[in-house]
């Protein structure tokens, strides 16, 4: 999807890796990876130490690397998570109680960055990067049909149906949007003109995306009814179960996490 942004993960590329992957991580049970995701989220929510956050991040990064996934792309994709963390913390990190590192004062206004403020930023950043990296690792090592079967098992109807169908439709919609923007660019539409003209042009693209999604929903629904759709469809892929070794690894990981969080005193 070259007309879209390079800093947003490209679903086609992700799917390519997940379909072609042959490393150990592509073979272990998707359920294991899902449970590990839960463990990681719990970990970053409970943990208060920067050191542990960095360690977790490095471990996840190593997993990512070991699965032969593209590192350069990963760093490009960090952009949005970075912005989200910064926009939240960049404002809150000032004037934290602690030892001042840096201070800025203009009339009526003073900003002080303390060690705790900086720590706050870094900790949240690493925690966030750890989960982001793990999510992408999960996506890029798990086959699409396993995901669909998991969605089918986990969510109640009709959420599962909407979810599954939208999972498929996203690819079609992205292609459609991509070609629309290409067509616009081929007539000189991609260049920055007036703000007003530019917003109008994008609004027209968005409106068309919506309208055509509507029409397409109509046609897809017809095609489904032609095959007897009665409000339920089944994702039938068999998902590999969790192996003994995988249970064991998770147990060890969980125990270690608990030990590190509650029984080890770290400087920060």
């Amino acid at each position, binding site marked *: 999807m070259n007309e*879209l*942004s390079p800093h947003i*993960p490209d*679903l086609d590329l992700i799917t390519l890796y997940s379909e072609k992957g042959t490393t150990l991580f592509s073979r272990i049970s998707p359920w294991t990876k899902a449970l590990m995701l839960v463990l990681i*989220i719990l970990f*970053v*929510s409970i*943990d*208060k130490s920067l050191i542990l*956050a960095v360690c977790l991040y490095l471990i996840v990064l190593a997993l990512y690397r070991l699965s032969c996934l593209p590192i350069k792309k990963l760093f490009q*994709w960090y952009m949005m998570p970075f912005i*989200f963390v910064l926009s*939240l913390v960049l*404002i809150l990190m*000032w*004037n*934290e109680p602690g030892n001042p590192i840096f201070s800025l004062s203009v009339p009526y206004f003073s900003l002080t960055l303390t060690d*705790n403020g900086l*720590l*706050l930023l870094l900790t*949240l950043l690493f*925690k*966030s990067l750890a*989960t982001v990296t793990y*999510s*992408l690792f999960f996506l890029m090592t798990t086959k699409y049909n396993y995901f669909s079967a998991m969605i089918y098992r986990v969510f109640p109807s*009709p*959420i599962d*149906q*909407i979810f*599954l*169908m*939208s999972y498929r439709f*996203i690819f*079609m*919609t*992205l292609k*459609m*949007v991509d070609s629309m*923007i290409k067509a616009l660019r081929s007539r000189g539409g*991609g260049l*920055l003109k007036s*703000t007003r003209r*530019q*917003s*109008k042009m*994008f*609004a*027209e693209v*968005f*409106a068309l*995306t*919506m*309208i055509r*999604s509507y029409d397409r*929903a109509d046609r897809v*629904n017809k095609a*489904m009814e032609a095959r007897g759709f*009665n*409000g339920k469809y089944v994702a039938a892929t068999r998902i590999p179960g969790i192996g003994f070794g995988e249970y064991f690894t998770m147990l060890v990981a969980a125990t270690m996490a608990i030990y590190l969080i509650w029984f080890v005193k770290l400087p920060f």
Partner: protein
Amino acid sequence: MAHIHLPDGAFSIQWIITWWIIAIIILGLCLYWLKKVKKIDNKKITLAAMLTAASFAIFQINIPLFGGVHMNLTPLIGMLAGPAIGAIIVLIVNIFSAAIGHGGWGMIGANLLVNVTEVTVAYGIYKALGKINLDTFSKAGIGTITGVLFGNITMILIILISGIQGVNQDIPNTLYGLSLLAAVNMGVAIIEAFITGYVVSYIKRVRPDMLAEVTPVAATAK
């Protein structure tokens, strides 16, 4: 979208669970209503899936204004799908977003509450303005601005209540910081309002039946 997806690690575990529970209750109510009261049909399901995909795809478009803006058009979802299906749509969009690293998994509960507020308020305002003599562009624009405003307020409340892990400032200080954040958000909301206004008036012109949720009159008149 309030344009901020709260990242994982921002809230402590108690609050993550709390917001999730509230979100699940709201979703449960929506599901109950859709199944028992509204009797959702197959077509609505397909349509919701399409809107989910469209909303996710639209977010991926980089608008080259002010160095790059992304739109999520959550208020528009409200106007097209109504609040109940809208809630399911934003849930799925949030899950997709979390999967590619935009917003935390643990934060889906909280993010969902913010989005549901936007969806519901935008829907309500647009519908309420239906009786007033106002052009579609303004109605949709006002709906969007108000929706995003309330979404922002919800977000500030959620952050104030749960607190960011590691932040030890007093409430006024935090509030001050968050208001700044909200102000930036409202700036983006103005672009979003303009765009949503255009989008809705385009749709109104070409496919008025798509706005049946908010203007039932137009649908029957067709």
